[in-house]
């Protein structure tokens, strides 16, 4: 190479610099097209689509073998027929979605660590069976799952498809309870729990977001509205009836089991919960065309409340004991989340006070 040719090489490189265009190419990323939510407030969370790997049909283990769990770890619990299953936060923190099948019921446990929201969705959407994956996108710092059948994006806390062929469709929910591992296994001693042998190498014993759960100042992505009435990270059970929403503070329940017979937006509802047992659940009070009132039941788990006809019910809204076992109270569209997220998705939410 001669002196001149090297000079030319530098010159060419300089020209490349000057002419360089900013470009973005992608394959199999997101749906284009309209969104029901402001696109400017949808963010790439960093790991990418399926960069946080959802689990599908994971292995389960017994209580005795679930040594990776501590008593106060939170779990999301589901029961279909006699089969109770627990999906622990320490697994969901790393996977966010678990696609599962219980006695023929197809469901997706979706959990967003940044908004503290866990919701069980039906996996039959528009007549088609699907699995959900983690899109890698966030809206109001909340998980946007995508269904793999249509590549549509869903807003978890909005409970709605917001982009893609199924845009506008609402998710069908399964009854689910968020509580501690200790409470759940006291309620359902035969429960199975997701094994830490997931097929992925992850440090399931460690929480991946530092002090995020308790640091009230820390947000990792913007949210579109702030409501200072409660601390950002306070956990609330939110219910949605029509266009109105209401939040029940889990820490405001009594240590013993407490029931709240309420009427919200014209619907009689019962909220049952306990601060020490760390759970709250919401159901309609109308059963067999009659409005019932409920009172708490202590020290008889899984029974947590009794109706005015003397039937006992568990925290999943199922009646217990013969001859009326197996009835199901109608669950409300409700789930637990951090207050800041609930307020961002449902501005102007009422807050229950005694």
């Amino acid at each position, binding site marked *: 190479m001669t002196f001149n040719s090297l000079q030319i090489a530098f010159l060419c490189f300089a020209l490349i610099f000057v002419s360089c265009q900013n470009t973005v190419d992608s394959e199999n990323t997101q749906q284009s097209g309209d969104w029901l939510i402001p696109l400017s407030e949808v*963010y790439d969370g960093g790991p*990418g689509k399926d960069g946080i790997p959802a689990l599908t049909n994971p292995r389960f283990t017994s209580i005795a073998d679930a040594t990776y769990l501590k008593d106060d770890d939170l779990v999301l619990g589901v029961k279909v027929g006699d089969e109770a299953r627990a999906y622990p936060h320490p697994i969901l923190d790393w996977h966010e979605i678990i696609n599962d099948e219980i006695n023929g019921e197809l469901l997706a446990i979706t959990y967003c660590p940044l908004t503290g929201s866990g919701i069980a969705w039906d996996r039959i959407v528009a007549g088609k069976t699907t699995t959900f994956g983690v899109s890698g996108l966030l809206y109001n710092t909340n998980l946007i799952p995508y269904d793999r059948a249509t590549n549509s994006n869903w807003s978890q806390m909005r409970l709605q498809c917001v982009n893609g062929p199924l845009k506008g469709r609402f998710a069908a929910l399964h009854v689910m309870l968020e509580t501690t591992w200790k409470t759940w296994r006291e309620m359902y001693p035969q429960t199975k729990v997701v094994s830490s042998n997931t097929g992925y190498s992850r440090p399931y014993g460690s929480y991946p977001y530092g002090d995020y759960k308790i640091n009230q100042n820390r947000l990792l992505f913007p949210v579109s509205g702030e409501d200072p009435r409660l601390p950002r990270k306070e956990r609330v059970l939110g219910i949605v009836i029509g266009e109105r929403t209401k939040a029940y503070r889990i820490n405001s329940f009594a240590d013993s089991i407490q029931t709240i017979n309420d009427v919200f937006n014209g619907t009689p509802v019962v909220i049952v919960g306990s601060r020490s047992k760390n759970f709250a659940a919401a159901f309609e009070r109308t059963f067999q065309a009659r409005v019932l009132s409920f009172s708490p039941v202590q020290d008889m788990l899984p029974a947590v409340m009794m109706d005015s006809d003397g039937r006992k019910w568990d925290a999943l809204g199922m009646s217990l004991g013969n001859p009326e076992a197996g009835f199901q109270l109608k669950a409300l569209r409700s789930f637990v989340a951090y207050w800041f997220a609930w307020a961002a998705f449902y501005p102007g939410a009422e807050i229950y006070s005694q």
Partner: protein
Amino acid sequence: MARVISITSLILLTLVQQKMVAQACCSAGTPLLSSLELSTTPIRSWQFALSYEYNALRDLISVTRQLDDDSRRRTVHSALLEVSYGLTRSFSLTTLWTLIQQERRISTPGTRGEFVRSRGFGDAVLLLKYNIVPLNIVSQREISFGIGSKIPLGRSSLTSNGILLAADMQPGTGAWDGILWAYASEGFLPKLPLNLFLTASYRFTGANDRYEITSQKGYRFGNELVASLGTGYRTDTPFDFSVLLRYRWVTADRFSGSEVPNTGGEWIYLHPGVNFKLSNDFSFRLSGQVPLYRDLQGTQLTTSYTASLTLFYTIAGSTLSIEE
């Protein structure tokens, strides 16, 4: 006398060339200037360093433990043009221009996978260097300091399908940073054909205006310290060799005043290289970098190795002026 000065200048420039390494390292995948090891430039001389660097981020590390996971791969291609000019016997000015291509490939089993690539101008650096102890053929010692800034020329707001790409997928950071730089070297000719050198740079990062829709705006990459201790070995052949240990320490990124989890940490790299001299003015360097130690905050996808090729080109101003 002129001949002595000319020869001296060429030897000094050759020594300097051994130490020229410009590198864009990554913090959370975004190329940032993390290492400036270009020595000061003799008066009225020009030095050019044209580099290509391939940075493979494949290792998923949880604190110090490598996780068995290869589903997520990041690659950063960087082209860097470093230009330095000797203003006086003591002061020189260095600029660094970058082109960045970021790639993210997801291949989680059971999924269709994803690939995203962004490309564009990266940020630039302007650095003023002061030579406290000038290199000379007798003492073979040099000490220099520098101060400068990283200039946010690169785009930090690229979108894919209308969605703002993650901060670590942008070619630029969108923030002005301050840079402090220091360099020291000691040669041992004619007893030993090698020199030892120590470099350190520190970057004070600024915040950008990312997420400007809310009061929670402002993303700031972590402050960064890079220190390298190395040696260069000269041979009588066109080949020279070098090896250095590089220590890198990065504080956590911050968003809206709070630390961002899974960012920041400490790294130690081994960085061997070989130079090939085409002439007194031109040389190539082929070098690589592998991690020896990593202690990261949380779980991060981080560098598995880097490989780079650099072309050095010098115009010796002192020589020309004497001959004139």
